[in-house]
């Protein structure tokens, strides 16, 4: 049984383009049976925030490889990744590393 939570969800590195270009979202997560962990947050984001092309953000029950996740400015790897239990006033930042223009022929170096 999880109480409602207020968290800030932020998108950067180009990921914001999937969310109408909006980088920062103040989010209130409703109370529910299941705990609020990152796994469930992703489900919620997909349902309530994601505007287009979900496959560019989510893969399976996690984020697409190449998307970094920082929780309160720390790599989610240090905090249990999908299993991290959200706390009130947490800040979750998703940075895409996948965009850019280095798309050319093999290097002539």
């Amino acid at each position, binding site marked *: 049984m999880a109480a409602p939570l207020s968290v800030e969800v932020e998108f*950067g*590195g*180009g990921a914001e*383009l999937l969310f109408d270009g909006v980088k920062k979202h103040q989010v209130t997560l409703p109370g529910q049976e299941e705990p609020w962990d990152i796994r469930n947050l992703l489900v919620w984001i997909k349902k309530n925030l994601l505007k287009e092309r979900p496959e560019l953000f989510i893969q399976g029950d996690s984020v697409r*490889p*190449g998307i*970094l996740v*920082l929780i309160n*400015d*720390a*790599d989610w*790897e*240090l*905090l*249990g990744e999908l299993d*991290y239990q959200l706390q009130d006033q947490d800040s979750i*930042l998703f*940075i*895409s*590393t*996948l*965009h*850019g*223009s*280095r*798309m*050319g*022929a*093999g*290097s*002539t*170096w």
Partner: protein
Amino acid sequence: MPAPQCASCHEARAALRRPRSGQALCATCFCTAFEAEVLHTVVAGRLLPPGAVVAVGASGGKDSTVLAHVLRELAPRLGISLHLVAVDEGIGGYRDAALAAVRRQAARWELPLTVVAYAELFGGWTMDAVARSTAGSGRSRSCCTFCGVLRRRALEEGARRVAATHVVTGHNADDMAETVLMNFLRGDAGRLARGGGLGSPGEGGALPRCRPLQLASQKEVVLYAHFRRLDYFSEECVYAPEAFRGHARELLKLLEAARPSAVLDLVHSAERLALAPAARPPPPGACSRCGALASRALCQACALLDGLNRGRPRLAIGKGRRGLDEEGPPGGRGSHSRPDPRLRSPSPASRDSSSPLGSDDVGVRGRL
């Protein structure tokens, strides 16, 4: 579970675990370590000697932003001076916004900025024009092939304009690993053999080039930019979805998930490759048109522009890479000094008299 303590300062909470060592560091100690590693890469490889005038390829993206920022921090210690060089490929919407980011950076860092445009250098051929020309040729991803070749040429030209002695770009370890994969997948033995090493020493009159971030993983570049609050441009090039590199990137991401060291290991493998004698490419000569380094009669840029100007853009790309007027390996023209590209090549051998376009061929008139 709370994050562990920083393994370096033991005071702050760790912000990440470094992929190679597994060491948990706080943001400050990580940034310090990142900068120290770039310094080590440059010093140990003797990449940028004291007095170097360094042209920094600046796209406004995360890699060149981090590169410029770190080199600016290190410049006093290295005794080098920096010029930002930005290339305007003429991609509507995308490149304007990216250039705006570069201009902001130049102002904030108080670094000189030179912008070089395809339209000016290549006789009006912007990337948008190339894309239109190659569309419907059956291989839409070919426009990215053109861009890679022409951008390198443009960067070189920009570097010459600011009297640079060295050129640096922000390629990171992931980029290098992708390039290795692509070269394997395309059977490009020549590039594989040259793909290793920290830089090109500048054969045939070309400026020495290096990539100080080559050993930095893309993830760490992004995190460094985040922790240092650097402003960069991160939209995808409108043509990028068509590029072959995207496939190599996807594969690399999957491999990395299974084995995090795969990225750097790929780069190290390429550095250690030795080609069988039969596979080794011939020593390069000089382009018969512009004098740049070339392994055939025409360098890649001239061959590609030739194809565009003759309305047959597919001609110069693909495994064969032979332009219309190539006859084979480069002739006896010496490559001791690089002719000024602004001079029209006077040699009759380089003018294809059978060309339906005659001597008004834009590709010949344009500077390269």
